[in-house]
């Protein structure tokens, strides 16, 4: 498979066990995501969208199958390598922002760089750059709870980007936002793909937003049922 594919899933299964009950959340997913595209994952609740994203992002391991990202089979990585993979290759954006309330905006965005072990001076430069992209510099010493939902999600996106990963995974990033802020977020992702060469995969319930994306993946009962190239 060529370099054109950023993410390749091959017969991926995820079976959750609760006591003696087994529940297959993913049932043999085969999927490729091209580099430098904006993909939306849609489907009913419980269809396995979050599970899919977590597996691509190395937060969870599939029960079976292989997941190759940027040429690396991440199912073969040990815990430490997987953590390193998450830090360097992936930027996560969540529905609930997941900002740390006791850190300032600046410190929240700085976190992935600190985890990576980047030195202080370089860190400052990169954080300010990321904040500038989203017009957040003036808020840098504020705490997350002093910001609006839209601002918080922009901070979370800045945090996802600060390490300059090529792959952005967003799980219902607009779920808590009004339509205006939701639009801003999706336009931001669009810009990241068009101007910065990133690959963005976004889970969404909002059909309105799919008009911004290149590919729509429809899921049902743990399977990809349709891939629409727009």
């Amino acid at each position, binding site marked *: 498979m060529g370099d054109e594919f950023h993410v390749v899933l091959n017969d991926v299964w995820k079976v959750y066990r609760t006591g003696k009950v087994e529940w297959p959340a993913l049932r043999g997913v085969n999927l490729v995501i091209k580099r430098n595209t904006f993909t939306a994952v849609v489907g009913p609740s419980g269809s396995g969208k979050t599970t899919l994203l977590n597996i691509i992002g190395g937060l*969870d391991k599939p029960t079976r199958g292989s997941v190759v990202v940027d040429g690396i089979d991440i199912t073969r990585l040990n815990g*430490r390598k997987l*953590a390193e993979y*998450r*830090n360097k290759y992936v930027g996560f954006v969540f529905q609930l922002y*997941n900002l*740390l309330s*006791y850190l300032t905006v600046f410190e929240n965005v700085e976190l992935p760089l600190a*985890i990576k072990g980047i030195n202080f001076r370089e860190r400052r430069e990169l954080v300010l750059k990321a904040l500038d992209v989203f017009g957040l510099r003036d808020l840098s010493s504020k705490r997350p709870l002093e910001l609006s939902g839209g601002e918080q999600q922009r901070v979370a996106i800045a*945090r996802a980007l600060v390490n300059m990963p090529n792959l952005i995974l967003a799980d219902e990033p607009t779920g808590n936002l009004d339509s205006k802020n939701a639009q801003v977020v999706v336009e931001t992702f669009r810009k990241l793909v068009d101007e910065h060469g990133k690959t963005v995969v976004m889970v969404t319930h909002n059909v309105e937003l799919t008009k911004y994306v290149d590919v729509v993946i429809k899921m049902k009962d743990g399977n990809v049922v349709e891939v629409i190239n727009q």
Partner: protein
Amino acid sequence: MNIYDVVKLAWKQLTQRRLRTILTILAVAVGVMVIIALSSHARGIYVSFIANFERLGPTTIIVSSTGTRLLSDVDVYRVSELPGVSIVIPMRTLSGNVEGLNVRATVVGVRASELKELLGGDVNLLKGNPLTDTPIPIALIGYNIAHDQSSSSEVVDVGQTIAVRVGTRTYIFSVVGILNYYGSSFLLSSPDDSIYIPLDYFRRVSGVQGYSVVIVKASDVNVVSDVADNIRMLLGARARVTTVQSVVNTFTNILNQMNLLLVSIASTSFIAAGLGTFNIMMVSVLERVREIGLLKALGMSDTTVLLLYLIQGLLIGLIGGLSGFGLGIVLSQALTHIFSLTIGPRSPGPGPQANPFTSYTPVLDPQYTLIAVVLSLTTTAVASIYPSWRASKLSPVEALRYE
């Protein structure tokens, strides 16, 4: 992630839950404080005790008569002939009240030439002249007799006379000299509360032959116990033989046991501190499940997460230990004050205080200080191992799903 950043993040998490953190730090501090304060008092007593004994010298053996029969000149002679004995100082003592001044005093009859040994090598005169061997009523008096207890002003001067009442009799002495302040003494009465008179006069006026106390000095530290045994054999039940060495040893043992008891008592407060630390670390981890999931999603390794929480435990221990150390010093000073209020006023005069059990200076015990600090760190570290391990093992997916 470099360690500085981990410590910084750990610190921010701790300060986010300020009250809870402070309470746990306090629990640790109390244990350290108790150990520091009490051990420095124990050490203070010990140091002042040892200082008193060092004045007598390590070769000193004190022989005191037990029954009504005093030790005779023959006894003294036979003791002086024992191998390993270098000096024998016979004396008579009586205790009485100084009339007009209303202070208790010990009247000590001693040969002028031997007073030096009794006072630890030096007759330290504040004013007047030294004692001489004459059969007339002259006296060299201690600091506390010549000075008022509360105001420290001089109440008896050289050339004046003092009357000492012993039982029904009253003795009159002419003061030839006043001693400088010495501080307390253990096996003998303190020089500060003593009136030294010529032995010859004492024998003449009391009409009784013999000695109540004989101080023996061995020629070498190594023969002290042999000499003491020989004296016991010689005098049998008529005398009690005490060596400075054995008293020091006994006292050292008592102090060590006291400190052991102290550490065990303080340990219970460390158990409380440990449980407290375990509790807040556990609550902290459970409260931060989502957050830990996020840190892992951002690429923090399990080891770093483990470290993040262990460091929080260690910070609690470190701050608790340091503040306990400070509080311990404050408490030991406060205790000194309280003791002196409840047990009575300090004796007047410069230098070390008269009664080492009521008025000593607490001395920081390095060994127990170290024990206290190590205990505080290990307690909190051990208490945070399990919560930290739990945090490091959290699955990021579960954690992020957690509401």
